């Protein structure tokens, strides 16, 4: 079985539209993906971002299938369950909610067959919990 491990660290600029109000946020996070290239991918996500009226933390596990477009592009749609915590000052409230993620990746050509560097564009959303943000990331795959 061919195991692929993708480790990416991202600094993001995103836009979220919770509760109908537009806001520019600065979330950051990392993801670790373990799975077979042509089969199901598993993805762990931890994300944090601030809004002007509260902070949101997301922790989740995701499941998806990566579709390769040639040697350099890939699309990874995923569905996951997240623990969402919103905090304002000392008060916080948590709950579980599904979240949908679509990740587009561009991988640079490398001489190594086991190590690749690439850019990713990730859209994570669930209108039912007012989360909609777009991430730009850079990472490596080995």
């Amino acid at each position: 079985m061919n195991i692929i491990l993708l480790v990416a660290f991202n600094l993001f600029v995103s836009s979220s539209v919770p509760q109908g109000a537009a806001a520019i946020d600065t979330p950051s996070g990392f993801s670790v993906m373990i799975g077979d290239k042509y089969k199901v991918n598993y993805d762990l996500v931890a994300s944090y971002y601030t809004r002007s009226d509260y902070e949101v933390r997301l922790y989740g596990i995701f499941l998806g299938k990566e579709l390769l477009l040639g040697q350099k592009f890939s699309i990874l749609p995923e569905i996951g369950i997240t623990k969402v915590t919103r905090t304002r000052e000392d008060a916080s409230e948590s709950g579980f909610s599904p979240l949908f993620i679509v990740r587009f990746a561009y991988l640079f050509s490398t001489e190594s067959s086991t190590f690749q560097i690439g850019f990713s564009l990730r859209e994570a959303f669930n209108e039912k919990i007012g989360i909609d943000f777009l991430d730009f990331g850079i990472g490596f795959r080995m």
Partner: protein
Amino acid sequence: MKKLVLTSLILVLVLGCKNSFSTRMTSDYFPLKRGNEWVFDVKGDNNYQITIEVKDIEVTQGDSLFLVDVGGEIYQFERKLGMVKRFRRLFTTYEGERVDFGIVYEPYLLLPPIEGENWEREFNLSSVHREQTLEKVFLISVDSVIHTSIVLNSENYENVYHLKRTVVEDGDSTVEYEWFAPNIGLIKKEVPADSVVWELLSFELNE
């Protein structure tokens, strides 16, 4: 292909689910739109009905001021991201004359409500009346925010936020308990000192 169809179906079902937390995350607990109306049954020494209606919206310097008729008295609310402010004109009666202290912007409700939070604001005001300086202290404090469910008139309301509001004006303290339901707004209010309870009878909200 079968797996893809099955997976897609599961995704649609999962994303379509609406749980309590989702409701609390995205619902409006203080919907202010022109024409919105709530009718309350007021129970106390005398039983009567009171109507709350959003009468008009004034836009000044980009801010929207909602004029809300509460049983004939106009309340002014301003809605900002994360907060509803109530504009309250404060005055006192001194030697039979009304002395105005101006308008204060009271933090009425933080949105979306979060269980366990509390907020407080104190206003120390003064006004010169016939060459005499009069002072006034006004304090609003909200605490004990919890989410709960409540049955009113055989109707079960879920994901309701309950809070305790204390207003102190010139040393006199008034405590009110309020319940806000998702996408409805205020559904119940208790004023223990007056033994008065407001309970929602009906409401009509504009889209």
